[in-house]
């Protein structure tokens, strides 16, 4: 049994069948990549996992519990964190404040009305946030407005924010899209370090094969809304079916 079990999931948008009968099992502490050509249904699948979309049929179980019908914040509280294609951070706030928010969410839950405590004197939160910033090599930027940072730094902050919640499953949606080569390599190194040092499962949707083959130890290829193959990276490279899906039949 994997930590995330997707069974017979289908999703239709009107006449378009975005996902049909998807079965997927993600093993605990693995780095599982989901690849596939444009329109294969990768993002739809991801949205079904985090509560943004509800599949028409099938089930999604996380650690033995169904996630279907739960709001995104409830699914996050179960232990699934998501990193977006374009970094979603609190642009108007400082980097330190950005980091404090997930720490508070982890400690206080979905809602807490502590309107009279001073945020900066919450020692446990401050220590955790500062510690996380150091781990992400961002301590010197703590008082910067998050929106003013580079794309790579925003991504680093977003990943740090997700990690500070100590999730069991980290979902990444094309984490290196639109990044310069140096930033891409930094992100790969960061993710490698995370998967080695923490007991965490990473599921990653990616276009860039360089990223996929440097990180993943299991790959699922999605084509036209259905899984084509699931295998180890070595076997995926030479698989004719995968080439066909990516390059067309004549290739």
């Amino acid at each position, binding site marked *: 049994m994997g930590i995330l079990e997707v069974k017979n999931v289908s999703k239709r948008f009107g006449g378009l069948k975005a996902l049909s009968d998807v079965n997927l099992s993600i093993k605990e502490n693995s780095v599982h990549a989901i690849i596939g050509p444009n329109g294969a249904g990768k993002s739809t699948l991801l949205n079904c996992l985090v509560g943004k979309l509800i599949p028409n049929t099938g089930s999604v179980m996380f650690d033995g519990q169904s996630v279907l019908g739960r709001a995104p914040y409830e699914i996050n509280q179960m232990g699934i964190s998501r990193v*977006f294609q374009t970094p979603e951070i609190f642009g*108007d706030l400082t980097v330190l404040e950005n980091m404090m928010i997930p720490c*508070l969410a982890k400690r206080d839950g*979905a*809602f807490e009305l502590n*309107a*009279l405590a001073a945020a900066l004197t*919450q020692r446990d939160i401050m220590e955790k946030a500062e510690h996380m910033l150091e781990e992400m090599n961002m301590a010197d930027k703590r008082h910067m407005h998050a929106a003013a940072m580079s794309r790579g730094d925003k991504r680093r902050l977003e990943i740090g924010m997700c990690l500070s919640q100590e999730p069991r499953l980290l979902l990444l949606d094309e984490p290196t899209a639109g990044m310069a080569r140096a930033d891409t390599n930094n992100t790969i190194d960061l993710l490698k370090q995370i998967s080695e040092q923490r007991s965490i499962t990473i599921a990653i949707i990616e276009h860039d094969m360089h990223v996929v083959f440097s990180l993943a130890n299991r790959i699922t290829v999605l084509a036209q809304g259905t899984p084509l193959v699931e295998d180890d990276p070595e076997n995926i490279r030479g698989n004719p079916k995968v080439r066909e899906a990516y390059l067309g039949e004549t290739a």
Partner: protein
Amino acid sequence: MLKLTKSDFNLMLLVAALTLLAPFILNPFPTDSAMAQFNAGYPDLMQRFVIFGILAVGFNILFGLTGYLSFGHAAFLGVGSYAAVWMFKLLSMNVLPAIVLSVAISGLFALVIGYISLRRSGIYFSILTLAFAQMMFALAYSVLTPITGGETGLQLALDDPRIFGASQTPGGNIPVPSLFGLEMRESFDLVLGAWVFTFNFGYYFCALVLLASFYLAIRIFRSPFGLMLRAVKSNQQRMNYTGLNTRPYTLAAFVISGMYAGLAGGLMASMDPLAGAERMQWTASGEIVLMTILGGVGTLIGPVLGAGFIKYFENIFSKINDNVLHEWFAFLPDGIENFMVFIIHPFIGKGWHLTLGLLFMLVVIYLPGGLVEGGQKLAAWFQKRGQKTETSKSKIEPAE
């Protein structure tokens, strides 16, 4: 001090100084001078300054922190006023129970209206709040006349029960609002040479409530709750995917700011014990938005400044008439004098809205951060100038 950081404490001191010394600050001109009409230090206007200050501070907790623009906040002001006047009619003329009930009732209304309106965000939220406020205005103006007094408004009467007080004074008059016997209208004049400064008990009562409200607002701004509200404004998507439920946060902010508005309404009725439906009209709601934007959205002191600024204009600019203008320009030749009066005429008296509108446009275009941003720019400019003269000095020194 007071569990505030140093800069927040200084800000608190500044507001305390401004409000407590207001009778001096707002009366800079001798009573008999031609400029005396620009004096704003009379109790009625000073009370309005601080009451609308409270209203704007509360509105800013919603709009400034979460970014949700309520266009119906005057409804809570009206509800607060009605609640207070009813307490004066039924219970006693003591302002404390009246204000407590105003806050409680408006909080209740805010809970219901907020719960429904906050299902949407952005422009739809604004429209929903506007719709609620207009419905409440219509109810107060006609449908609920037995409770609200309809067009004439809710007034005190000689035969009101006032079970813990007296229906009438021994002289056969309606009693006036008081705090344990201290009447709100009690005033004391201090004559210093050509100046007369008026100290009014009602004003100081309101000023202390403003200080307490302002202090509470600072604490909210700096709390984890305040941080979450700013996060709502910044990125709701990230909040949802960080395990946070944004709804209760926005609802709590809405209720708190509705209670601030109710407090302001209760104080308004305590200063002058009557309540009318016009207090709930959409123009009144719009005025609150203007105050906050003019002063500086999301800043602590901005709304207070904005409220003072607009109320000053409303009461002082609107009093200037053509005769006053003729006096001012009397030194000019007749033709030019008349021409100047003709040019300025549309902007004064009843045309003060025009002046306010122009100023508002200038602020929004050149100082999107409101008066507070203007102050900051000014301070930065002075600092720069100070540094320049210092460096030029140090350049000269070696030459000596």
